[in-house]
């Protein structure tokens, strides 16, 4: 059965984030932040959660290899900076040691007497928001395909890579569908690469979350993104169901017109393979 490999240091899995940084990502969403800012915030938080999940008494265990492919303008590049900007794929322990910076932020905590209070907290930043130029989605997915293929060749026994693609618009360098098909055909012994697509909006438009058929979608672009998306494997479908989404057989890892709350859920659901070994 596919998607059952235990994730361990000997058999890590891979998360590849493919992030649209085209000009339109500077549109503002709720709360006055741009789509690009919101997406990078959620991605930074997701990376921190992955690091935390791998942190044991003896240090950060390399359960995950993670890459960020950022695209916008004429450029496809690693989203990491500094010492980890070379190869796209980096080990989680190296990521843990190389944020661009650590910001001081606040979070709300129980004050112990029926109220809440702001508590200072550290927020590591790996990806800064930028947004300019066109949307070279083909080039980005081609890069993702190369990276996922190489990683899968080197990790035959591993839970296959998960590619989380976030975009807000149409490709400006041609039809990306065949490349998405190519990505999903890559596999390890444990199953095919998972490609999940998140289409974000600055508001307006009915959001469509984890649809089961193309008929739920009313334009050709959203139908194409649907076809580009993998079916959610059982454990992820169950997790999405636990979060209150209605899930049935064949539900795709795809959100159209996602608002900020959907973005958070998408990242959380997409980065939830079972960590069972080595605990």
């Amino acid at each position, binding site marked *: 059965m596919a998607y059952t490999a235990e994730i361990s240091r000997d058999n890590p899995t891979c998360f590849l984030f493919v992030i649209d940084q085209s000009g339109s990502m500077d549109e503002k969403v709720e709360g006055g932040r741009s789509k690009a800012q919101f997406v990078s915030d959620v991605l930074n938080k997701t990376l921190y959660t992955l690091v935390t999940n791998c942190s044991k008494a003896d240090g950060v265990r390399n359960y995950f290899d993670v890459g960020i492919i950022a695209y916008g303008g004429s450029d496809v590049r690693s989203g990491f900076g500094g010492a980890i900007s070379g190869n796209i794929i980096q080990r989680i322990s190296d990521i843990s040691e190389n944020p661009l910076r650590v910001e001081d932020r606040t979070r709300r905590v129980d004050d112990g*007497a*029926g109220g*809440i209070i702001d508590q200072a907290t550290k927020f590591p930043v790996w990806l800064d928001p930028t947004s300019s130029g066109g949307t070279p989605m083909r080039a980005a997915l081609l890069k993702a395909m190369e990276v996922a293929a190489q990683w899968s060749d080197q990790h035959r026994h591993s839970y296959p890579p998960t590619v989380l693609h976030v975009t807000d618009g149409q490709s400006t360098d041609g039809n990306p569908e065949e490349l998405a098909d190519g990505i999903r055909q890559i596999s390890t012994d444990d199953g095919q690469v998972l490609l999940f697509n998140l289409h974000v909006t600055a508001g307006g438009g009915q959001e469509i979350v984890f649809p089961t058929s193309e008929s739920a979608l009313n334009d050709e672009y959203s139908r194409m993104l649907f076809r580009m998306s993998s079916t959610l494997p059982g454990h992820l479908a169950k997790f999405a169901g636990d979060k209150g*989404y209605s899930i049935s057989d064949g539900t795709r890892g795809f959100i159209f017109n996602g608002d900020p709350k959907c973005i958070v859920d998408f990242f959380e659901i997409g980065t939830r393979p079972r960590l069972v070994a080595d605990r």
Partner: protein
Amino acid sequence: MSFSAEISRASPTAILFVIDQSTSMRDRLQSEKSKSEFLADVLNKTLYTLITTCSKADGIRDYFYVGVVAYSGLDARNGFQGILANVDMHPISRIADAPLRIETRIKKVVGPNDVLVEEPTKFPIWFEPQNRGKTSMCAGLRSACSLMRAWCSQHQASYPPTVLHVTDGHPTDGNPEPIADEIKRLATEDGPCLLFNLHVDIGGAPPRVFPNDERMLHDRFGKTLFRMSSELPLHAIQAAKKKGHDIKSGARGFVFNAGIEEIVDFFDIGTRPSIVSDR
């Protein structure tokens, strides 16, 4: 115009809390307290705040009549204990006189250099957390309905009652929607009874705060709770905006998947009918 009656001693308003005490309220929130413990803290603090609001040089003025309906198992009951358990709706001065006990809590406060420090604080307890049995929501709302029917008939000139219903799950004793509709049809000359619903969650799923469209909820029961909730009146909209919430036209007094921050905000915003006279 509705919701414009001045709240005074001659024309008080009613606030009724309806609290789910089913077994699942034992689940831990992100703050590590159980849902029922945290809710009890917030309710006790809210009662204390109401008392403070009504405290003038000449004593505590009875601007508010307050009751608590608790439900679980097969039925609903007065959520107060001790001498407050015998009557359902109490003038606020009687509540001020009858806490079960005063606890000393260790409260986090902002100390020098914005560092959080802990200090002891007096914390009166009127309401005790409980969590046992099924989710007899219909029984709870039916009890609220009959209490508010009696109250409205006796206070026709008053600002209409506010019912704050807090739950974490699905009713086990039928469909609560017709009962909610009945509560919302109760009225004084100043407008219909307000029913606000708070759905609490252990965290993970993003909260939906004061939605204005049923389609913003993916969960079937979330949609039901949305329809059960009154639109926010102007004073509540203002209070919510002051807390930084983006309130759209037609926003309901409803929060889905509330965490600790939203729970505190909900109680604060829901218990804010404006006191304008008698000052």
